[in-house]
């Protein structure tokens, strides 16, 4: 692994990882539980994501040349380490496959209704594969280039949607109590788990100067984007209506209509953002999955691992028969993700912490 990235480059990895295709459907998932208080769920999970981000960073500092999967093997031993790596492999591969399928279903509904999904899926996989073959430096450059574009389009969507908001939709505050808010927060665990990309790219960084600051800034930006989009969806539609919308964020963009006859199809602006959003998140899942599988098979053959995942991605992405099955499988995969974010990562950090303390005592 060549160390070629500057600490500021971590920002685009984290933001692209956290702002994922789930931005399109997550408002519905959270509102199902937390109703109009859903934005609090995002903030709570955002705080936890920051903590998890720091844990990945802290572990990375202890094993500067190892990825999180390799660290797991060191911390838990070979057998349990491999089991955890296998869990991560299942999670990342399914996340990539279902992410690409969700994107394809979304694009089929709103843009390319007669294009066969296999071609949309194949093109996305090939685009990711090409970037991956070029290496982490190339990925970082692409992510840096896409970041301002994506944030600018999201900002534009926010600005144009402000006309449709009604503050009354946010009331009553905290009426359902803490439990639904926490249940809603759990729904955010999956998109925010991607903060774990830190654990896979740290070995590529030249220095770690101000890294903590950049992690905090990038997590905050991602959390702010989710919170604002969720607030806008709630204020524009009300929590009841969101439950009826399959992709509330796209519907939000389709609801924009200016008084003057310009930007009649303002959602095209947002479409221009969510295609690169999906691409970048998928790319990071592919990267994490490749590095994780390298640790699992204990190999240095990048290309074999990269190419061998392609048929798996294709089969898994094509497996669900309909969007209902996609969401069902995403739910199942989210459970696995929650196991990783709520148990494995903190546990790994705790074991490492106690190991180090014991070492120091000796």
């Amino acid at each position, binding site marked *: 692994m060549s160390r070629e990235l500057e600490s500021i480059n971590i920002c685009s990895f984290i933001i692209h990882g956290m702002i994922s295709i789930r931005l399109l459907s997550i408002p519905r998932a959270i509102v199902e539980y937390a109703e109009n208080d859903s934005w609090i769920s995002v903030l709570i999970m955002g705080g936890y994501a920051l903590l998890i981000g720091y844990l990945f960073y802290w572990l990375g500092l202890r094993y500067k040349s190892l990825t999180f999967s390799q660290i797991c093997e060191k911390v838990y031993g070979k057998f349990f380490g491999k089991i955890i790596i296998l869990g991560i492999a299942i999670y990342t591969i399914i996340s990539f496959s279902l992410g690409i399928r969700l994107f394809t279903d979304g694009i089929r509904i709103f843009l*390319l209704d007669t294009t066969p999904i296999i071609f949309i899926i194949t*093109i996305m996989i090939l685009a990711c594969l*090409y970037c991956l073959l070029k290496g982490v430096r190339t990925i970082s450059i692409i992510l840096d280039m896409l970041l301002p574009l994506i944030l600018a389009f999201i900002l534009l969507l926010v600005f144009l949607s402000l006309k449709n908001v009604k503050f009354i939709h946010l009331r*009553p505050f905290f009426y359902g109590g803490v439990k639904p808010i926490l249940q809603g927060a759990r729904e955010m665990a999956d998109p925010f788990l991607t903060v774990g990309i830190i654990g896979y790219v740290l070995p590529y960084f030249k220095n770690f100067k101000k890294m903590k600051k950049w992690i905090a800034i990038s997590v905050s930006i991602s959390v702010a984007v989710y919170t604002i989009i969720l607030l806008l969806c709630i204020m524009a539609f009300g929590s*009841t209506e969101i439950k*009826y919308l399959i992709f509330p964020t796209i519907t939000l963009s389709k609801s924009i*209509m200016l008084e003057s006859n310009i930007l009649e*199809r303002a959602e095209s602006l947002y479409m221009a953002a969510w295609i690169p959003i999906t691409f970048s998140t998928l790319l990071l899942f592919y990267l994490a999955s490749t590095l994780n599988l390298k640790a699992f098979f204990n190999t240095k053959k990048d290309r074999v691992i990269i190419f061998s995942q392609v048929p798996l991605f294709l089969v898994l992405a094509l497996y669900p028969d309909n969007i209902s099955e996609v969401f069902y499988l995403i739910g199942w995969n989210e459970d696995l993700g929650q196991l990783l974010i709520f148990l494995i990562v903190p546990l790994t950090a705790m074991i490492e912490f106690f190991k180090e303390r014991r070492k120091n005592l000796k």
Partner: protein
Amino acid sequence: MKFLLSRYSKLFLSLLFIIIMIGCWDYKEIENRGYVLGIAIDKPKPLPKGYENDQSYQEEKKLERMELQQGEPRYAYTIQIPILPKAQVKPIGGGGGGGGAESSRSWDLTLLGNSFFEANREFSTRLNYAPFYEHLKVIIINEKVAREGIIPPLDMILRDPEMRRRTKVFVTSEEAHKILDVTPRIDDYAAMYLADLPRNATKTSRMPHITDLGEVAESLHGQVDFGLPIVISTSDEIKIIGAAAFKGDKMVGRLSGIQTIYAKWIRDAIKGGVIVIKARHNPNILLTLELKKVKTKLRPIVDGDNVKILIKSKAVINLAEESETRYKDALKQDFIKNIEQGAKDEIESNIKETIKYVQQELGADIFHFKVILQKFAPKTWEQVEDDWYEVFRNLDIVVDVDVELEYIGTVK
């Protein structure tokens, strides 16, 4: 070998990209789309008396029938497609007249069916341009359809990704397709003309302007009653004459233009408009007041089991017209206070009357008092939820309007 593999893999990838990226399955020439500007939904009608022997009419009616896979036709769906070569930007006929005799600038197609999606596909048996709804401007629903319920005819429109939530919805007591038949004097298409009318909400509050499909969807899904504008037409004009009140998805009654002003006042939806009052010092003098800014807040007042709704409003008005001019005291504070008090009394009284009418005659909570309880007194809402319509009919309302006169114009 490695070099060769790399070259072959590049060649393979290039060929693959050439094959899969040369075009788009969804590519469609812009001039080959049938842009649907308006949809009208009526009840299917038998041949009217006197037309039984009219062959061209009979032939047209034959085209409107389709073989249904299930049941009998419940609706007559009409779509309006612009005939672009006939479009014109200048007023026709010169001097602003004579538009009605022009040949139609749009093609209105009707089909009888019970599923809009099925009918929509059936249009393709008559239309060589695929109907395209992304630029749909208006949906007009016949009153009889509206009274039976609008969920069945609107479901596909709410569900289909091609539709837009900002499409405006109207109700008419006439046959809805006749509204689309109007040949406007300035605009090219009735749908565009009608879609623009609610934009005049800054000029008058006699028409509901928040009337789009998204609002309808939110009301239907949230089980909140609502209002939609009612339109009537002549051969070259369309007029919004008030509001249709919906309870659930069924129309239950109407509000006149003046009642619509006060219904909008309660809903904090006034963007402008006019009210006319009698001068307090002389009832023979009429004062026309322009509404510049109106802000209304609704809050529940809960006292034990007793629930009231407080309507607190602040209005900024201008004196626009007075039937007796040259009033020498026009710049004195008493004169101003008098107008403010007169306006306050008139507005409060009209608000109360409108509420009473809606409570007693319509029984539909178009003012969203239910939402106010849900948002500001959720515990009370839970207590009254099951008997809400009974509670609504007897709900006490406290109205407090504060009026501020800003300008009196350029003469005393």
